[in-house]
């Protein structure tokens, strides 16, 4: 199973909200959107464009705190929501540091991006990415997108949001200035070691192997030491 992420280069975004409307049509939630309940929305602020949308955290607080497991973290990195399980307690609304889940007072359910799991599972782009006219939104495998975000940030002198916030997310935002200055919540970094993502898994076997090899080496050294000690204990001829 591949793990995915979205890269948002705000230096290409014009705030057209085609992503927002394409999302609405994809998920048929016009009535909720008309009340301001958007899964994704671009707010045109004075100093930049704030895309209010799920960050798909590596360690999602909403998942950790949901009492009925209506929110789950998928193998693809997407934080998914099962409306049938949801009891409308709004724990997720309160626990999300990014302020993302929106509560629909009528349905008593929440509104939140799924990163188009139904499309990505079929090899398609998320609807918002597909419609983006300028390519400000890009989608791909987590490690590639993460590396791309880092690379673009260095090349174009941009700030990255989503790399460390809340332990890291599956949405990386690039901007000329700190995105927290134009609408993105100031979310503290969490220990990145705790926040290792599925995408970091290639590093894990290596670490385990290193421990194992180290251990075997130690065992081997100990065996050699024991053998040497035993030799020392033998009567001198």
């Amino acid at each position, binding site marked *: *199973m591949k793990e995915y992420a979205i890269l948002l280069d705000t*230096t*290409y*975004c*014009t*705030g*057209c*909200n*085609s992503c*927002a*409307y*394409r999302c*609405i*049509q*994809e*998920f*048929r939630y016009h009535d909720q*959107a*008309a*009340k*301001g309940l958007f899964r994704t*929305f671009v*707010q*045109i602020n*004075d*100093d*930049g*464009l704030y895309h209010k949308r799920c960050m798909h955290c590596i360690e999602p607080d909403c998942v950790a705190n949901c009492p009925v497991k209506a929110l*789950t*973290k*998928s*193998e693809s990195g*997407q934080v*998914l929501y*099962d*409306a049938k399980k949801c009891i409308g307690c709004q724990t997720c609304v309160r626990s999300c540091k990014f302020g993302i889940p929106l509560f629909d007072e009528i349905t008593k359910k929440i509104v939140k991006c*799924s990163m188009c*799991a*139904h499309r990505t*599972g079929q090899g398609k782009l998320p*609807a918002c990415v*597909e*419609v*983006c*006219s*300028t*390519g*400000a939104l890009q989608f791909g495998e987590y490690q590639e997108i993460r590396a791309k975000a880092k690379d673009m940030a260095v090349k174009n002198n941009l700030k990255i949001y989503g790399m460390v916030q809340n332990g890291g997310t599956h949405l990386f935002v690039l901007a000329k200035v700190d995105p927290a200055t134009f609408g993105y919540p100031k979310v503290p970094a969490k220990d990145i070691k705790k926040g*290792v*993502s*599925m995408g*970091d*898994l290639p590093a894990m076997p290596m670490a385990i192997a290193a*421990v194992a090899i180290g*251990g075997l080496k*130690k*065992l081997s*050294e*100990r065996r050699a*030491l024991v053998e040497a000690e035993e030799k020392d204990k033998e009567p001198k001829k």
Partner: protein
Amino acid sequence: MEKKNKVSRRRFLQFAGAAGAALAGSAFPFRNLKSAWAFGDHPQEQLPYRITKKVPQVCARACECDCAYTIVVGVDPATGVERAITVEGRPEDPVSNGKFCIKAMGFVDSMYDPDRLMVSLKRTNKKKGIDVDPGWVIMKTDDAVNEIIGKLKTFRREDIVFASPGDPYTNRLCMSLGCTRSDQRTECFGTHYYINCLTTTNPPNMFYSSSYTPSHHVCGYDYDTSKYQVWFGFDSFSKCGKAGMLNHWAAGKRNGCKIVMLNPVRTPMTDAFAGEFYPIKPGTDLAVALAMINVIIKDKKYNKSFVDKYSDAAALVDVKTKAALKTADGSFLAWSTKNKKAEAIDECDSPALEGGPFKVNGVNAKPVMQLLKEATKSNTPEWAAKISEVPAKDIRRIALEFAAAAPYSMIPTYKRDAAGPNYANSWRLRHAINILNSLVGSIDHDGGILLLHGVKLPWLDDMNPPVVPYPPKPAKHADFREEFPVTNNIYRNKDFSAPGHYGMIGWGLYKTTRAKAVFFRNPHRGLHAMIQPQMMEAAADKLDLIIDWNLYLDDLGYFCDYVIPAPHQFEEAKLDIRLYYPKYPAYAGGTPVQKAPGDQIGWGGFAMKIGMALAPKYWTTDGSGNPDKKIPTNIGDVAVKQAGVAENAAEFMKNGGLWVDKKPYENYKHLAQIGYGKPNGRVRMYVDEFAEVGHSPLPIWAPRWHESTGKFKFSLLITRAPWIMHADPNFVNNPVMKEINTRSHMDTVWINPKAAAKLGVKEGEEVLLENDPKYMKDLPRPVKAKIHLTTRIAREDCVLLFHGIGHRAKNLKVGANYGYRDGDLIPQKNPAMSKKHDPTGMGWVEDVYVSIKKTS
């Protein structure tokens, strides 16, 4: 020491055990692998709808681009009913490159707008007005059309105005009836069209055609490969949503293009695409453009090869009469520096660009380039800086960078940008822009201005020439176009689809009795598309017959005697050329997504019925009026057949409905074919027709018409939200788009926070905007609105309004009484005054200063 670092087996096992326990406890590193759902089982991994078909379509009326895309039809889970769901891109379309915008998606949903007009309505209450009950009675459309025809027969041809864009059917109809065609839509970018006609092309040029796009462009812009662009007010908020352009701008940015933006408003376009941004003083772009001409000529940075061969730079002009000298067969004359005599410009191999006067047949003549040099001599960057507040050193540098990057540089313009009819001096700016693009050789070159070529949609008159000459046109038009000979000549003698006078049709209806019957071919614009609609409203009572053919019963309908339902654009078949990125010859077609669900009538059928009833000899192949001999109207069949693309439109659509001839653009080839003059077309910088009506044949500085006086110190700037087009209920009556609009503060008026502080107004407070009575003498209608304070308004002397909101038609349940109406603040123009400022007589919609005060 050595022993100290050694780990005993017990210690190692203890460590490993503890680490294992810790990892197991935290589920690290497999914590996230623990899935609550098997892959594909989660409800959010299921497609929310079932797709049943995909229908190719072409966007129409949403913006200039006309993107080709596919409408996805499926079963809506909410209702279980099949309906259009969304849009998919067509990557092979050179305009859209697989993209589409929020408005295209809005059109999908508007097919099911519950407020769509499904039946024909007839007024029974003679009193008209937005707050008057019209006493509508429902009619069968066939019956209503017959009644309308019966009433139209009672009017003289000169009493009838068709407010309709110059589409093939409207043209045929108005020509055959001998009445006025004066649309309130195309006029808003009329200046652009006329200046192009007078400088770049001969109307109608060999490729010129238009089935849906009413803006009559022959020029497109190669944003993808351009390296340098200067935008004069080009970056409006509406541009932020135009997918057919955005994808090209993004390609250009990735290609390293530098864009210099001059605009009092800093839009997200500026943030994303501007290499440099100057908050220019409104209405002074012309000064900067003239200074750029000054620098390029003074430093001799123009493209001599281009101006020699493809422009009138060497053309000789009689310095006394200001007329261009021509040979008997109409060719320009140039002064041969080698032969020391005047020669036909195409045969002159060493033409003088500067110097003179030269004696030609006893006449003192100078080359156009010399006259341009003289005309702009005092327009130095320092001079322009004082007027525009753009630093002189930057103007000079920009001019040189622009010239150095040519021909991969350009100044684009579309529709109602600053170069359109925004100010009384904007026709001069448009002229100056054409000159700048010409001087550096960017016209008809990739990376610069692309010219339409290789495709043709025939007009009805191409397919069916009239059997007898059309009746004469009215001597006096309700839009006063006869008062403007330069543009009237084009309308009367060259291109009947040419725009009328947006800024004066309301004046004509209100102040005169020139029109007695007005037919609005008006899908989803309503009164909003007309500036100062209060004039039209006041005129309604004295007009004997007003008809609206429309998708909605909008504000205009409340002043009409009949409102006839029109089909949705996705309920019609289409064939479109790729006018807005004409790098390749291309056709894109559309198939109806569904049948019109009510008693709608298409425009072609409606026009044919009127034509057959009122002017049958022009609507039958032999002039007999025999209904069995109606003229064929299968434009699409003829177009694709002539292009060798398919046998007919049906076959074209069966094959996918998109054809692109991806041969490389042939630089400087098309200008000779469609450019101004003969035998070889050229760009014309010098327009002697302007001299004939007392205006300068070359652009010279002129201030705005409207001056700022006293409290009227806020220059009115107008834009549109990216998700709204004009006053179109397709979008404003969409509850989601209304919500997006509100959350984006685009139902408010925007000013700079410093200006607000001086006024003592705070965010969200209600303010009143009023006109200066010196400039709005009739029917003033102040605007009340909430205010938004934002540094996106980069100057303190401006106020930004959003066009398209402020509907009052009660049946538009979402759009009515939302926001304000910008047009109320924009005066219709007195034609006598207008022609003193502008020989094209266009709208000047932003040439207004208003006062702002708190309402409480």
